[in-house]
């Protein structure tokens, strides 16, 4: 028995070692770097100590960081809200007896498997102020031409739209799986009791979808707060940082300005924010059926 346990530990130790080396190691190193000034070029053992000054600078003086934080929150709120509502709405439609259900599912899911950069480049053309197809449609309807990605007031909203287009298919599939896991008996019983469609949704579908909702909201929020590729490939944070997000600013700070200490501090601040928001979301949305 003891010999078997030793073998078990031996097998388990390999992935744990890999986890420590490739995940925990970089995290701890990044934390250490965040307390220094490091340009990535000088030897690590010569990094000047800065204490918490990187954190203080980011939270009190770095206007771009504060702006990007605000933009990222708006992106997350808009994206998560739209993905949740649209995802659930389309999933309800697909869960009904709509014709060509398999085809709709494929169509909705296609943007999810499209390369994000390809999608970003495509939408840069679609939303172009002067020759983009969306503006051609808008002006054909007699409405004024819009700047979209090149306008400081519209760039972020346009990015949210693109992100929702890209990911809503994924959440539809998740919601659909959740809906199909709800036993038909509940609806039958409710109908016997005279419940309407709205009451069924309010008192059966929504409560029983709570674990799915939690998964969708938490994973979508984490992803949205870490958005990078879409913004990098479309606006690069322009115009005038109106679409700058935290991770893009982190990338610029690290690799364009050679301030790895400050970029690492940004990563830890973002980590803390994500952790806090996730805990709040879990607290609010977790299934209390069994606790009660």
């Amino acid at each position, binding site marked *: 028995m003891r010999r078997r346990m030793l073998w078990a530990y031996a097998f388990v130790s390999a992935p744990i070692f890999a986890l420590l080396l490739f995940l925990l190691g970089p995290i701890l190193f990044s934390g250490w770097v965040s307390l220094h*000034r490091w*340009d*990535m*070029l*000088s030897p690590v053992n010569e990094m*000047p100590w800065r204490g918490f000054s990187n954190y203080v600078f980011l939270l009190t003086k770095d206007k*771009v960081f504060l702006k990007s934080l605000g933009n990222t929150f708006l992106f997350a709120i808009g994206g998560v809200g739209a993905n949740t509502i649209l995802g659930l709405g389309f999933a309800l439609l697909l869960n009904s007896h709509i014709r060509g259900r398999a085809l709709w599912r494929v169509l909705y899911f296609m943007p999810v498997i499209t390369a994000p950069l390809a999608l970003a480049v495509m939408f840069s053309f679609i939303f*172009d*102020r*002067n*020759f983009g197809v969306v*503006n*051609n449609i808008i*002006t054909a309807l007699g409405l*004024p*031409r819009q*700047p979209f990605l*090149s*306008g*400081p007031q519209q760039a972020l909203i346009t990015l949210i739209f693109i992100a929702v287009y890209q990911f809503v298919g994924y959440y539809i599939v998740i919601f659909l799986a959740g809906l199909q896991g709800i036993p038909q008996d509940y609806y039958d019983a409710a109908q016997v009791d005279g419940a309407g469609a709205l009451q069924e949704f309010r008192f059966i579908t929504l409560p029983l979808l709570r674990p799915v909702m939690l998964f969708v909201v938490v994973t979508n929020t984490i992803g949205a707060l870490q958005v990078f590729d879409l913004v990098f490939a479309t*606006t*690069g944070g*322009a*115009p*005038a*940082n*109106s679409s700058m997000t935290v991770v893009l600013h982190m990338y*610029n700070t690290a*690799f*364009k*300005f*050679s*301030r790895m200490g400050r970029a690492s501090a940004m990563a830890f601040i973002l980590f803390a924010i994500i952790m806090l928001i996730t805990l709040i979301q879990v607290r609010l949305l977790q299934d209390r059926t069994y606790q009660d």
Partner: protein
Amino acid sequence: MNPKRLLCFVFLFALLGAFSSAALAQDTTLTMLTHWGTEDQLAAQQAIIDAYMAENPDVAIELVTVDFGELRTKIITGRTAGISADVYHFYHLWLPDFVNAGVLAEPTQDALSYINENVAQGTIDAVSTSDGQTWGYPTEVNPYQLVYNKRLLAEAGYDAPPANWDELKDMAAAITQVDDTGAITQLGFGVIAGWDSGIVHPFSSLLFSNGGNFLSEDRTVAEFNSPEGIETLQLYADMVASGGTDPSISGLGDFPSGTVGMVIMAPWWRATLRAAEGIDFDTEVGVAEIPVGPSGEAPSSIAYTWLFAVDSNSPNKPAAWDFIHWMNAEHEEGVGSAIGDFLVNGLGAIPSFDHDQAAFAESMSDHYVSAFVAASAYARPEQIVAGGQEIKTLLQVEIEAVLTGMTSPEDALASVEMQANAILEEQRMMAEE
């Protein structure tokens, strides 16, 4: 001795001998990192490399290219990962950062002597740090000029390019055309948005032609927040208001298609313009001096430089310097260097070395490059400082804010001045630590 044991010894010695002779015959391999990545540019560089390897069969050279936008990141991450190139070709603005971090190897005495004998002092200064140390072979020297579309100017009723900012504003507004739906089909003057090269062209070019400075002479404080600087940004705002420019249009991207009237650009653009289908290089492309601003007295411009240098971690520094020297040296009088040939005939850029400027004088005498050659006589070198890239990016963001009406020229420059001075101060303290 036991015959078996003897046989083992013989076998072992034969094995060791084979490995050591193989090691002795092994090539020195150099990696060169550049940003010249188009098909033509790759072929031209490979031809130079092949010629060198034919003369030096014990050296193998691998060429790696990345887009300019990723070059600095590639250098930094490559070094951090321990896979840095031996030879770099990079933008001189990054020199102080790289030197402070110990990225670069000092050139050999022979290399320094050759550079000092064959390059103008101003260009040598552009690839040297403030202590007078030169760090590599300067390659192209690129001043900026106003590049304009003669056909579009003529259609708007002008037969000569603008000489001052009032004329620039009027012409830009006259050239711009907007269709019934509000789409800009033709733009007067192109600015850069979303890329911090907008600081050298057009901002610094216009600032200098308005009598302003970017940094103080000793490079310790920012001086762009001046009446001249504010006038420069006001020019942007005025042109946006009059429709002469629009940040949603890429001036550099659309000029070759013949739909932008004027941009501020460098000589190396000749290859692009020659290949462009929307504009006839010989008859439609014109080059003029940067229009003079209300506070300026004469046209001015800014010039930047690139250099070849060696990584301090390179295990083959002498071979790397030898290769760089071979590329840049004139091996036969009057024929110029291999790099000079590529710069002038391949790109249209102005080479740094005197022998290349003489050897390729004819190639630089066309209507396009000759105007830049004339400007190189008075263009002011871009001031290089540690943290310069960050300052450029901060200023570019504020310029975009002016272009999109989010802030005023005064507020934009005041905001960046404060941050730029903090960066300069921080870099000075870092250097002293």
